[in-house]
C-alpha cells in the first residue's frame, strides 16, 4: 500500500516536471551508411503511406459528408465496376514494386560479406553482454551500471538511466567491424539504433552482422528480445573512437587484462579476496542472487544461509566454474579469470553470515583450469 501511495505522489510530481525528455520521436538517422539508407527508406515509405492515406481518407470523408441520409441523400444502386477494380489492384502493385527496388538494394548491402578489419564476438547472457575481440586477447563483460536504488525509486534518476554500463564496447570508426553473435542461454537481441544493427543471439548458433561507423561518439541501445526477468536491464553502450585512439585503447586494454589476471601465483589474504569478491559479486552475481545473497527462488536460489554451499566447498567451486546446464547459471570459467573466480567464491562463502571462514586461492582455481 505504501508503494502505491508513493506511486501516486511521485506520479503527480513527475507529471508536472516532465516533457523535458522528449528529445526524439523518429528513427535516428544513425552514424553508418546503412543506417542512413534505412532511415531514407523509412521516411520514403512513410510519406507514400501519408499520401495514400490522404487520398483514401479524403474520398471516404467526402462521401460521408456529401451523402448523408440526414440531408436527404438518395442512394445509388451500383455495386461493381470492372475497370475501377482492375485499376485499384494494379496501381498499388506498381507502388509496391517501387518500394521493393530500393529496399532490395539496401538489404543486399547489409548482407555484404567482404573482409572485415576487426572481428568482435558478441555473446548474450542473462542479463549482460560479453564482448570478445577475436585474435586480440581482449574480452570483457558489460553490465548495466545503473544502481538498483534508482530503479526502485530510492534515488533520483541519472542522465542515462538504464542505458549505462560499467564497460562499453569500444570500436574504431572508418573500419569495417564484423560482429559474430551468439548466446549462452536464451535468445537475446543486440540492438543499437544509431548503428542500425539488430540481430538475435541464438544459443548454439552463430549470427553475423557488420558495421562501419562514420562518426566518433557514444551510442546507446539495449536488448530487444524478451530474455527473462532482467530483459529491461541489459543495455548496450558503444564508444566509437578515432582509429589512432582505438589502437591506443587496445594496447592499454590488453595490458589491463594482464594486470587483472595477475597474482595467480601468490598467496592472497582473506581481506583482499573478500574486497575483490564483493566487487565481482556486485557486478556479476547480484542481478540474480541479489545483493544480500537472498536470491529469488525458485529461479535464483539464495546463497545466504544455503546449506549445501556452506557444507560442500568443492560443489560450490565446481558450480561457479562450470555453471548449471539449463539454468541462468553460466560457466564462469569462460568469462572470469582465476583471481576473480577465487575471490567471488571466497566472498560468497563468508558474506551475509555464511561465515565458513575458509578461502579459495587463485592458484587453486588456476590449477584446475590448467590441466
Amino acid at each position: 500500500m505504501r508503494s502505491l501511495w508513493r506511486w501516486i505522489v511521485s506520479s503527480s510530481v513527475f507529471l508536472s516536471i516532465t516533457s523535458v525528455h522528449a528529445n526524439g520521436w523518429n528513427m535516428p538517422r544513425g552514424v553508418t551508411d546503412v543506417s542512413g539508407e534505412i532511415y531514407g527508406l523509412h521516411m520514403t515509405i512513410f510519406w507514400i503511406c501519408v499520401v495514400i492515406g490522404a487520398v483514401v481518407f479524403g474520398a471516404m470523408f467526402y462521401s460521408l459528408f456529401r451523402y448523408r441520409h440526414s440531408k436527404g441523400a438518395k442512394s445509388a444502386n451500383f455495386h461493381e465496376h470492372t475497370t475501377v477494380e482492375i485499376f485499384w489492384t494494379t496501381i498499388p502493385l506498381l507502388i509496391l514494386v517501387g518500394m521493393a527496388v530500393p529496399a532490395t538494394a539496401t538489404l543486399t548491402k547489409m548482407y555484404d560479406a567482404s573482409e572485415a578489419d576487426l572481428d568482435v564476438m558478441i555473446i548474450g547472457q542473462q542479463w549482460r553482454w560479453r564482448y570478445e575481440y577475436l585474435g586480440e586477447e581482449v574480452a570483457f563483460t558489460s553490465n548495466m551500471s545503473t544502481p538498483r536504488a534508482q530503479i526502485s525509486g530510492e534515488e533520483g534518476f541519472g542522465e542515462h538511466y538504464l542505458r549505462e554500463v560499467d564497460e562499453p564496447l569500444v570500436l574504431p570508426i572508418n573500419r569495417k567491424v564484423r560482429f559474430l553473435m551468439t548466446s549462452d542461454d536464451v535468445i537475446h537481441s543486440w540492438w543499437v539504433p544509431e548503428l542500425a544493427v539488430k540481430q538475435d543471439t541464438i544459443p548454439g548458433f552463430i549470427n553475423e552482422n557488420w558495421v562501419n561507423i562514420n562518426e566518433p561518439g557514444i551510442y546507446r541501445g539495449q536488448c530487444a528480445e524478451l530474455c527473462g526477468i532482467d530483459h529491461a536491464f541489459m543495455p548496450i553502450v558503444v564508444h566509437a573512437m578515432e582509429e589512432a585512439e582505438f589502437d591506443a585503447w587496445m594496447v592499454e586494454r590488453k595490458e589491463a587484462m594482464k594486470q587483472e589476471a595477475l597474482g595467480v601465483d601468490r598467496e592472497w589474504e582473506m581481506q583482499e579476496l573478500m574486497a575483490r569478491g564483493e566487487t565481482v559479486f556486485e557486478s556479476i552475481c547480484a542481478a540474480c542472487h541479489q545483493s544480500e545473497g537472498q536470491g529469488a527462488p525458485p529461479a535464483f536460489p539464495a546463497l545466504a544461509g544455503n546449506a549445501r554451499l556452506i557444507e560442500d566447498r568443492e560443489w560450490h567451486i565446481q558450480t561457479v566454474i562450470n555453471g548449471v546446464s539449463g539454468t541462468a547459471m553460466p560457466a564462469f570459467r569462460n568469462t572470469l579469470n582465476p583471481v576473480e573466480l577465487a575471490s567471488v567464491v571466497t566472498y560468497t562463502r563468508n558474506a551475509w553470515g555464511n561465515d565458513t571462514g575458509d578461502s579459495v586461492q587463485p592458484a587453486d582455481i588456476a590449477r584446475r583450469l590448467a590441466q
Partner: protein
Amino acid sequence: MAPKLPPTYPLEHSATTAAGSQAPTHHAPPRGLLRWLLTTNHKEIGSLYLIFSLIMFFIGGIFALVIRAELFQPGLQLVNPEFFNQMTTMHGLIMVFAAVMPAFTGLANWMIPLQIGAPDMALPRLNNFSFWLLPVAFTLLLSTLFMPGGGPNFGWTFYAPLSTTYAPPSTTFFILALHIAGISSILGAINIIATILNMRAPGMRMMDMPLFVWTWLITAFLLIAVMPVLAGVITMMLMDINFGTSFFSAAGGGDPVLFQHLFWFFGHPEVYIMILPAFGIVSVIIPTFARKPLFGYPSMVYATASIALLSFMVWAHHMFVVGLPLAAELFFMYSTMLIAVPTGVKIFNWITTLFRGSISFESPMLFSLAFVVLFTIGGFSGLMLAISPADFQYHDTYFVVAHFHYVLVPGAVFAIMAAVYYWLPKWTGHYPNERLAQWHFWLSVIGVNLTFFPMHFSGLAGMPRRIPDYALQFADFNMLSSLGAFLFGFSQLLFVLGVVLCVRGGKKAPAQAWEGAWDLEWTVPSPAPLHTFETPPVFKRPTP
C-alpha cells in the same frame, strides 16, 4: 433513427413460420444452470461464447492496465519484473485466445444459422462441448498465476528456449490449457464449415451468402489448417520439457529457430483468423447504413481468400532479425508486401460502397467507420514493417506493438462491438441506448488513439517491447499511452452498461431493425425466438 419497415421481405414464407413459436412438441428444456450447461441451441451457445469473451476481455484488460500503470513513469513502482512478464504474457494469451476468438465464434453461432436460413448448427452437441472446453482451458491458464514460480512469463509467442529449458514449472499447465483451447477452436471450426456447406436455405448459392458467412468459412479453413500446427509445436515443447527430447535445444542437436518457424507458420494465419471475420462484419454493416449494396461482392470474396492463402507464405517476416539468408529475407519481404493488394481492394470497396450512398451514423456504423480508418493506419504500419531493411530497426519495438494493436483493437475489437450493437435488437428485441453507445464510441476512439498512437513514436525512438522499465527519453509517450489505456479501459464499462440495459428493456425493435438491412436474419421476429427456420426459408436473391 426510427427504422421503417419496408413493405417486402426478401423471403417468400411468412413471418409466422419463421417465428416457429415454441410448439408444444418440443421437449421442455432443463431449467437454471443445467439448462446452460446442456444447451445445444445455437443462440444460447452463441450468447455463452459472447458472455465468456466479454468476461475474458475485462480480465485481459485488467492485465493490460497493470502493464500500463507500471509503465506510467520510469522506475519500478507497482510490480516486479517477473510479475510484469507474466502480465504481458497473460494479456496477450487471454486477449487472443479467450477474448477475440471466442467473440467471433459466438457471433458465428448466433448469426450464421440465421444468415443462411438454417435451424441450428450442423452439430449441436459438439457445439456445446466446444464451448464448455473454454472455461476449463482458461481457468487452468489463469490458475498458473498462483502456482509456485508463477505463470507463463515468456510472452504470448513463447519462444524457446525461454519457454522450455528456462521456463517456470507451470509451463506444462500452460501447454495443457492451450491444447484444450485449441481443440475447442478446431471443433468450432468443423461445426461452422459443416453448417455453411450443408445447411444453406434452398436457393442460396455460395456467392449469395452474406460476407460475414464467407469470411467465417475461410477463417474456419484457416483454423483447421493451423491449429494442429500449434498443437504440434506445444507438444514438442512438452516433450522437450518433460521427456528429454531436444527439438528446440542446440545442446541436443535441435534448433531454437525451428520453434519460431513452426510458431509463426501457425501464428501468421492466426492473425488473420482474428481479422477476417471482422472484415465480414464491416462488409455487412456498411451497406446497411449506406443503404446501398456492397460494392464488389465477388472481389471481396476473392480478396479474403487470397489474404488467407498468402498468410501461409509470409510467416518469416516475424523473424527478419534471427539471421535468415538474404534470399529468404527477400522472399518474405515481397510476399508480405503483396498482402497490401487484396487488403487495399477491401478498403477501396468499402469506401466505394459509401460513395453515393445514403449514410446514417448509428453506433454500429460509427464503429465500422472507425474500423476502416484505424485498421488502414495499422495496415500502413504493417507495410512499413514488411520492408525488411527497415524492420531491422522496427522489430521488437513499440512500433510493432502500435501496429498490431491498431489492427486488433480498433480492428478486431471495434468490429466485434459494431456487430454487437448491430445485432442486439435481433438478440434482445430492444434497441441499445443510442446515446450511451455514442458516448462509448467516442470515448473508445479517443482512448484507443491516445493509447496506441504515441507507441509509434516511442518505438521509433528506440523503446523495445516487453520491458517493465525504460530510459527517460520514452517517459512522455508512455505517460500518454497509460492515460489513454485507462480511458479506453474504463469506457468499456459503458459498453457493459449498454448491453445490460438493452437486455432488460429499451425501445422495441421490429423484425427488420435497420432500414437498410436485408439479410435473412432480419426476416425473423425480434427478439429471435429460440427456434428459427425449422422449415427452411426459400432464399430469393435481391433484385437491385
